[in-house]
């Protein structure tokens, strides 16, 4: 299990386009937490602003930047 998690976390290091990364259900499944009611994280900045403009909520951004 630990190996699987490490592999998932390391995936962006090798990726040339990380647009598909950042969807947390993948990460959550790797930790054994596959709750369907888990939080939804967007992965596109423009989309986040569009939603924020619609809902009136501020945006909480996590920038998880691999070395």
């Amino acid at each position, binding site marked *: 299990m630990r190996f699987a*998690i490490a592999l998932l*976390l390391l995936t*962006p290091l090798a*990726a*040339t*386009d*990380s*647009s598909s*990364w*950042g969807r*947390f259900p993948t*990460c*959550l499944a790797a*930790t*054994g*937490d596959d709750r369907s009611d*888990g*939080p*939804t*994280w*967007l*992965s*596109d*900045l423009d989309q*986040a*602003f569009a*939603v*924020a*403009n619609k*809902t009136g*909520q*501020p*945006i*909480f*951004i*996590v*920038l*998880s*930047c*691999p*070395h």
Partner: protein
Amino acid sequence: MPGSFDEQVARLDLPLGDVGRRFVLLRLTNMRGLDLNLFDLDYDLNWHGLVVAQDRTVLARFGGRDAQTPGKHHSLAGLRYTLEKALERFNTYEPRTTTPKPRLVENYAAAARLGSKACIHCHHVREFQREEKLNAGTWTIADEWVYPEPSALGLTLDVDGDRIAAVRPESAAAAAGLQPGDVLRQVNSDDVASIMDVQHALHQAPAQGKLSLTWRRGTTMHRGSVELSEGWRRTDVSWRWSLKALPPGPQVSGDDLSDDERQKLGIGPTQLALRQNGFVPRAAEQAGLRVNDVIVGIEGRLLEMNARQFEAHVRLHFRVGQTVRYDVLRGGQRLSVPIKLQ
């Protein structure tokens, strides 16, 4: 199993849950396409939390580390506190009427070398910025002391909030009247609710001069100023990833000796004792350096630092092409090895 801090935040684990769900949640893993006006960060960190309003005003920042421990400032309770403060600010802040022209990281000339689809890491941004300054002849060593820790003023802040945990005696913060238990509210005109908020405000502070602070003690607000003397920003930056791209490299690499090994050689616990590993660069080998040599100083002066700090020391204080004599222990003898830095 709670997993990493990143995973806990991703799940909005307690105590984040109810507060976290009051935000639009966005996770990014690449600097490509991001506006550096908004993503004005300590780029050597690999985890950042930002709260942003619709007009792109940054309401709060979270994250950080000290020189020894990655993620030292990560705390779910501290993040919750910061998010709560951000919501308070969101309800009272004055939206901007103009937005600055975007500054994309791809606009740096050095970014083109990565290829058009490659992931741009956070630390790349600092490296691009440095390269631009080096090419323009405007780089100075002072550019390397970014995002000073509160300890530069003599402050230790509670990672779970913005309460002052300790004030170093005879420090600038002590002279200003700050005490343990005070709650720091503003640095210059910036509201602060986390250690990273404070570091961002300190990053904007001048190299010398005055810095105003506002703090709460009990129910009373206080305002004072600290004197920033020359070199106040200089804390241990050897952990910074981007520093590895600053020439010259030290031409040696390895680990610190163990305590037992130091004792046998009569080397103090905080003295430099870097054992050269199996990879000796050709120039260093030709100069006489060998595997298992122990570097203890430069130009006859023993240094008080570890192996990582030694690498940073060379990069920060010497120049490409300079020849430096390393003091080396080999088989009970002390040698002086001249290394031309590259």
